[in-house]
């Protein structure tokens, strides 16, 4: 057994490891206090950074659309242009093939509406971003939401806009069951909601 690298621990903290990798990290954490302490340190930084960045306004798109032509931005060797063209054709053909009967690609945006007191678990298709409305969320300033998977691992956290009762989940989630926990500005848990991610097929 080897100690976990800081990079592995950061990916674990951010929920970006595969299930196999998560198992390896957790089996090590069971017996290694050094890596437990390291994970706490790395996680504090990574989650704080994600929280801080999510609260910042989205940067304006670059207006200089010819910037990509400048030599210092164009680093590909000449032979790669043919490779890029070939890859684009292959990607197009693959996309056509997949949409004819293979696995559907993730939608760019999905929407979901949830209420806290309800038995079923509404489902949503996999999407790169999911616009979630929590219909019965209370009003309040500084509300915060976390999404955890069925094993309690946090996979996303971010602000909740109580005026519109909405949150934007900027993360493509694998298929499975998830729970949204809504906290007030003091960290008190207000509501919890369940939903599932399932392909439409």
């Amino acid at each position: 057994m080897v100690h976990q690298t800081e990079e592995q621990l950061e990916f674990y903290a951010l929920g970006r490891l595969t299930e196999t990798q998560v198992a390896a990290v957790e089996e090590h954490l069971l017996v290694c206090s050094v890596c437990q302490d390291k994970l706490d340190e790395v996680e504090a930084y990574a989650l704080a950074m994600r929280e801080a960045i999510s609260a910042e306004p989205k940067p304006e798109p670059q207006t200089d659309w010819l910037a990509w032509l400048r030599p210092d931005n164009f680093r590909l060797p000449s032979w790669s242009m043919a490779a890029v063209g070939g890859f684009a054709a292959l990607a197009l053909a693959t996309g056509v093939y997949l949409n004819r009967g293979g696995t559907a690609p993730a939608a760019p945006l999905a929407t979901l509406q949830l209420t806290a007191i309800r038995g079923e678990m509404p489902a949503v298709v996999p999407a790169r971003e999911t616009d979630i409305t929590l219909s019965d969320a209370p009003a309040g300033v500084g509300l915060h939401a976390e999404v955890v998977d069925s094993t309690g691992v946090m996979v996303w956290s971010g602000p909740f806009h109580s005026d519109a009762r909405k949150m934007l989940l900027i993360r493509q989630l694998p298929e499975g069951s998830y729970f949204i926990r809504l906290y007030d500005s003091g960290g008190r848990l207000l509501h919890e909601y369940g939903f599932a991610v399932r392909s439409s097929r």
Partner: protein
Amino acid sequence: MQDPPKSDAAGGQAFEVPDWATTVERIRAGDAGAMAQLYGVFTRGIRYLLLRTLGVEEVDDRVHDCFVIVTEAIRAGELRDPARLMGYVRTVVRRHIAASIEDAVTRRRTTVEFEDTVFSVSDWKANPEQNLLARQRAEIARRVFKGVSRRDREILRRFYLLEEPQDKICSEMGLTYNQFRLLKSRAKARFGKLGQRLAEGGTLGTPAIRDKRPSEKKPEK
């Protein structure tokens, strides 16, 4: 892309672990010392994982429950591969966590009002000290983020918020992997320094951060 080099002191270094197969055999033979050894080695680890996901409420009972499940399985000869004892322990812990969450969610859905008696998986997060710490960290991270160049902010945003793979970020932003890691490492080091300054002096020193804002630089080839 090549595997990232292991630059942190402990990462990748060999780590001595007991011979779990021997420990399992000793426990099955009724060796109390082996039970104590097992308890001493991984109850802290079980506690650590449970605290991360379920919070502090009843954690000692949960640790004990998991330990009992594991030792009873050992005594009953249910471990197919004794050398993979830690894998089995982890599975037990994960099942316990999943069951606890499912139970908590079910109970919440059957109550109309939230009361103090309703189980909360995140009670420990309501700790005022933890909340203050989280707010301070977020403020420090915000200052670190604001203190780097616009390009570096984009890189950090793509990694931490948009969760793009690092090879995609590197190829699209014109970075080598080492440059990418160096950027993250510097931001983390800055985070640590500001945190230390806050802990020692109680302030974050806003003017000093602004003065040290780096200019836009092209990455090295």
